């Protein structure tokens, strides 16, 4: 019999099974909230920023295996990056970091990128208010 066929890469399954940085950050510097119940994926991304550097990131996600994996990997990708670098993280980078996603799951990587951008925009808006 042929080997079992899996739609997800090992990396995706690893992040799905052991998601990194699950939870919320108390007093976050930025929060991104994207997705909607109709399409079935909702992501929340929290960031802690010190001297323009993202020192911590956490997520909460309602969604499929790919949505959980993309949320998890994006928190890893973003940690330690400065705001400018973080804004450059694209959905493509998310997909590459996961060793690929099935075509029907590409929107999950877009959602992860949007969650990150939304969190950073929230951070920038808060900074403006402080000034």
């Amino acid at each position, binding site marked *: 019999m042929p080997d079992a066929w899996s739609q997800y890469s090992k990396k995706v399954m690893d992040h799905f099974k052991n998601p990194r940085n*699950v939870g919320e950050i108390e007093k976050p510097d930025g929060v991104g*909230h994207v997705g909607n*119940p*109709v399409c079935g994926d909702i992501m929340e991304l929290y960031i802690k920023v010190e001297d323009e550097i993202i020192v911590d990131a956490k997520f909460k*996600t*309602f*969604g*499929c*295996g790919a949505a*959980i994996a993309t949320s998890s990997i994006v928190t890893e990708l973003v940690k330690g990056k400065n705001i400018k670098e973080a804004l450059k993280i694209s959905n493509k980078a998310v997909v590459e970091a996961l060793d690929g996603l099935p075509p029907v799951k590409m929107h999950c990587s877009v959602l992860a990128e949007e969650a990150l951008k939304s969190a950073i925009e929230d951070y920038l808006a808060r900074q403006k208010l402080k000034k």
Partner: protein
Amino acid sequence: MRRIYLDHAATTPTHPEVVKAMLPYFTDAFGNPSSVYSYGQEARGAVEEARTRVAELIGARGEEIIFTSGGTEADNFALKGAAYANERKGNHIITTSIEHRAVMEVCKLLGRRGFTITYLPVDKYGLVDPQDVKKVITSKTILISIIHANNEVGTIEPVSEIGKIAKEAEVYFHTDAVQAVGHIPVDVDKLKADLLSISAHKLYGPKGVGALYVRKGTKLISLMQGGEQEKRRRAGTENVPAIVGLGKAVELAGQEMDKEAERLVGLRNKLIKGLSEKIDHVHLNGHPTRRLPNNVCVSIDFVEGESMLLNLDLEGICASTGSACSSASLEPSHVLLALGLSPEQAHGSLRFTLGRENSEEDMERVLNLLPGIVAKLRAMSPLLKTQK
């Protein structure tokens, strides 16, 4: 790891006796049933024997059974065949909002091609009200197509009442009985059905074969031209081994159905009860009692179906979901939405459909594993927080 298969509404393992019955028709008895010599006549005999078996199970006559490539073809044949054969009489078709896609998408196509389709709503249990059917019949109505038992939520529709209404109105009545035949008693005369779809692989037969029951005298246009097979109603060399398999599968179903249904109802109820006891915010989808013996469909709040399925699969448990995340489209199941579920609840649906290999132990395994999976996923769900 021992795998537990709980997705019998998707497909069933072919019964070993069915496989045994099929095998000679690949090799020794390979003939074409249309051939006059002995090889052909052996095959012809086997096909006709299978036809009789199928007819017997549903109270029909052999000549009223047409073999098809499966349930989807049977549904397409019934709807397109009846619509185009009767378009001079009228162009109105009545169906429901919870049909299998093999009916729903044919209706949508016919709707774009000059037919008027009424999609009847269902109540929160997924039941169609026969009075609703009666109310929407017009002088233009030519066909009523209503699913016998729903594949997702397991609700058994009041098909015999609807059949009676159709008969009184002299409108053809088709029912997609793919999930019902071989699992619960189905009798075409009690249902007053003119057309009824059957699939072999839902009742421990092989994939790629099914049948359409066509009541004698029903006007139908063929989908396939190009041969004399099936009295010119379905051209193409008969899939003899598969047809033999269908015949054996319905024979076994006829013998085992009553006892097996009773056993499955016990397992089903144990699983439903256990899930509601062990997990908070679980809702049963479909009707509590008017449901298929083997169907457990629930929605689990705050978590998404595919992520539950993946976690179950890691533990060797195979189930199904109505969440869009498990399909190419992003919209959740039209059936669950028609029952009035919110999109979140539809995405959080899980369906277990039990079968002959399943035991009490299998139910216990699910009940031991699922609460932990749900807890893990809920811990990362942004929906739960907003509930607090």
